[in-house]
């Protein structure tokens, strides 16, 4: 470690102001702080600080995503061989999926971090760690079959228009990963929906429809069992199929306190409630679907655990978080069942509530302000 530290100290001046590579200062700084927690000390205010920083926080989220990622890799292989009617060993299946998903992850990080580094340098800031999570989320919410160039364009759009124009991580209104997904959805609809895309190199004769696709067109007899959907042996985006793997991530996020339990639980409750309401109306088969099916289908669980809880784009007050979560759950199920154009409503529900989150906060804070003003009036 000492030798590495000495080497970094030796080359550091070249990257500082006036050095040969001063244009790469932010990039150098990012790599340096990645290797070593800096020696920066407090100088006023609180002299001691909590050991958690943004890097620690983001790495915990990435760790929480790993179960879904590993399962997703295996499932990509499993669905591929299933469509061809073959069955091969566990490790071969996983290896197949690993080779398909890895390029997507690499493209996601290289393109996204490249833009982050460039913007940090332009602004003279340190590189923010937010993209460490976004870069892992994006590969998990796209179909395994996605062309890499398409992915790259979507990431450029999401990072620049979705985040950097607002000032970078912490200032953005929309969840960047979902912005990328939405861009793909609206720019290349033929590659993002239909029953073709969800299985990598699918055999032609095999139906590759996702449970939501089947439900939308009324093929309820083809709907997989609740168990299959919970464990994730179904076609779908890489990381979203296994509710179980997602729940393992959820436990990590909740124990460490990094994701808000208020948001997470209220999304599930909102979805379940909406399902119950439809059951009560019950005018078609989709409406009669048991509410707990909604929670394991499509991207609902993944969105609830990893997307809705993004602290930057969610509501920021504790009361607001509950309202925000309930609305996401309800709107997601509403779009699924009522809207004939979109099989999945989670992405749009979260993006919509991202936009409304500041409004929810506004009313929560307004009520706090009114309470304070009332106190003055009572006295007068």
């Amino acid at each position, binding site marked *: 470690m000492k030798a590495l530290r000495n080497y970094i100290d030796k080359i550091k001046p070249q990257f500082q102001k006036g050095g040969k590579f001063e244009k790469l200062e932010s990039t150098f700084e990012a790599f340096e702080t990645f290797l070593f927690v800096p020696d920066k000390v407090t100088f006023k205010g*609180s002299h001691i600080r909590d050991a958690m920083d943004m890097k620690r926080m983001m*790495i915990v989220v990435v760790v929480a995503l790993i179960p879904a990622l590993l399962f997703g890799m295996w499932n990509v292989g499993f669905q591929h061989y299933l469509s061809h009617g073959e069955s091969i060993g566990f490790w071969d299946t996983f290896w197949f999926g690993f080779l398909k998903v890895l390029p997507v992850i690499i493209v996601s990080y290289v393109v996204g971090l490249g833009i982050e580094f460039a913007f940090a340098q332009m602004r003279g800031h340190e590189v923010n760690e937010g993209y460490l999570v976004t870069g892992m989320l994006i590969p998990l919410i796209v179909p395994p079959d996605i062309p890499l160039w398409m992915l790259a364009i979507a990431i450029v759009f999401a990072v620049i228009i979705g985040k950097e124009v607002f000032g970078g991580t912490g200032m953005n209104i929309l969840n960047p990963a979902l912005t990328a997904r939405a861009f793909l959805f609206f720019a290349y609809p033929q590659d993002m929906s239909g029953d073709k895309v969800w299985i990598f190199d699918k055999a032609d004769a095999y139906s590759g429809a996702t449970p939501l696709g089947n439900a939308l067109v009324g093929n309820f007899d083809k709907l997989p069992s609740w168990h299959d959907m919970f464990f994730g042996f179904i076609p779908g985006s890489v990381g979203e199929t296994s509710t179980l793997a997602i729940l393992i991530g959820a436990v990590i996020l909740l124990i460490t306190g990094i994701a808000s339990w208020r948001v997470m639980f209220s999304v599930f409750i909102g979805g379940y409630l909406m399902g119950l309401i439809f059951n009560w109306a019950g005018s078609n088969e989709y409406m009669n679907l048991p509410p707990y099916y909604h929670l394991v289908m499509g991207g609902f669980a993944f969105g609830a655990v990893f997307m809705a809880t993004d602290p930057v784009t969610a509501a920021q007050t504790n009361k607001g978080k509950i309202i925000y979560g309930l609305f996401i759950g309800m709107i997601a199920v509403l779009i699924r069942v009522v809207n004939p154009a979109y099989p999945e409503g989670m992405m749009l529900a979260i993006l919509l509530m991202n936009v409304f989150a500041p409004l929810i906060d506004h009313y929560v804070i307004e009520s706090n302000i009114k309470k304070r003003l009332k106190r003055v009036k009572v006295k007068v």
Partner: protein
Amino acid sequence: MSKDVKIKRGLDIKLLGEAQKTVSQVTSKNFAIKPPDFVGVFPKLLVKEGDTVKAGTPVFFDKYRDNIIFTSPVSGKVEEVHRGAKRKMLEVRITADGNQDSVDFGKADPGSVTKEVVIEKLLKSGVWANIRQRPYSVIANPEHSPKAIFISAFDSSPLAPDCSFIIEKEAKAFQAGIDILKKLTPGKVHLNVHTEKTKSPVFLNTKGVEINKFSGPHPSGNVGIQIHHIDPVSKGEIVWYLNPQSVVMIGKLFLEGRYDGSRIIALTGSGVKDPKYYKVIAGISISDIVENQVGKSDNVRYISGNVLTGDKIDRDGYLGFYNNHITVIPEGNHFDFLGWALPRLKKYSVSKSYFSWLTPNRKYNLDTNLNGGHRAFVLTGLYEKVFPMDIYPMQLLKAIIVKDLDMIENLGIYEVDEEDFALCEFVDPSKTEMQSIVREGLDFIRKEME
């Protein structure tokens, strides 16, 4: 009605180096009064270098409020007026002659003096500077009539001195000080004690005050939190507050007729060999206190006050006017290989991404490393967990940053002070300088209002 308040949200940071309950006497030749200790005061000198002073001799006054004067804590000679950038006055250094002669302010019976005499005596002796007000946390204005006066009888901050212990022998002066303070407000004098920690009869038997009981973790001992739960400050209202040792000082001014700057302070922290209490005089140079307690070449930080809100001082720096606490902790100016990714069992965090939550009673040796870099606000909901007020801390900070006057006011700036945000600053993964932002906000509002 006295109240019983349970503080639920907060955090006790357990550190190594708590002071043993023994008191040593320490004397020094070097003293100073530091104008930066007095927020919002623009100092104008009344002495020159070489002048002889007594304890209680005026040294400087506030340009904006010329009846507020600051006096020497000891008798001796004005050694040097130490200035910093832009000739800002940082310290007025006084060399003590060891006689501790005081200006005679005349004895008076605390029971029978009138309000006018009280104010005049406090102002003339410089003891007035002990009385501060909310909002803004500045020295109180003698023309105001506060709706109440608050005294926090316990300090809940990390390694804080035990107020019951340091005030033990001063029962008479404390009661006298209370009697004096009662003349300054038409409302109540609130003495806030801790349900379990406060055992001293000096506090519990005090007459003429409302004794309120608080329980729970830090910041339950912060007077701002106590005011918020007992009688919150709304726009246009003023409360005054002071600490128990200041009350004793006021009492002695009337009982003995002199300026008595002596106080008991705690020397604490993991950088100290034998943490304990010392009897000193206000404004003392800490060099004589830490002489045999901290190695000269140790890589440590000296703090006048506690680790959350104190001021960084040098080894030959001076004890702050409002402080009765010195903390010495290791500096954190070292690199930590892949620190953010490793378990790091020695680190402390409120978040469970470290493992310190498994050993809740362990005491930590924390250093001054920032543990990260400055970032925009990202995580939400964390600050509220250590901020026991009905106020939205992050929203208030953001309003201050953009200088939105109405919003700052509406979100409750009048009730807060920097120290109330110290724990938020401690837990913040974005490493924002919250206490500085709050001070900026308070100064901004004060300028707009006055």
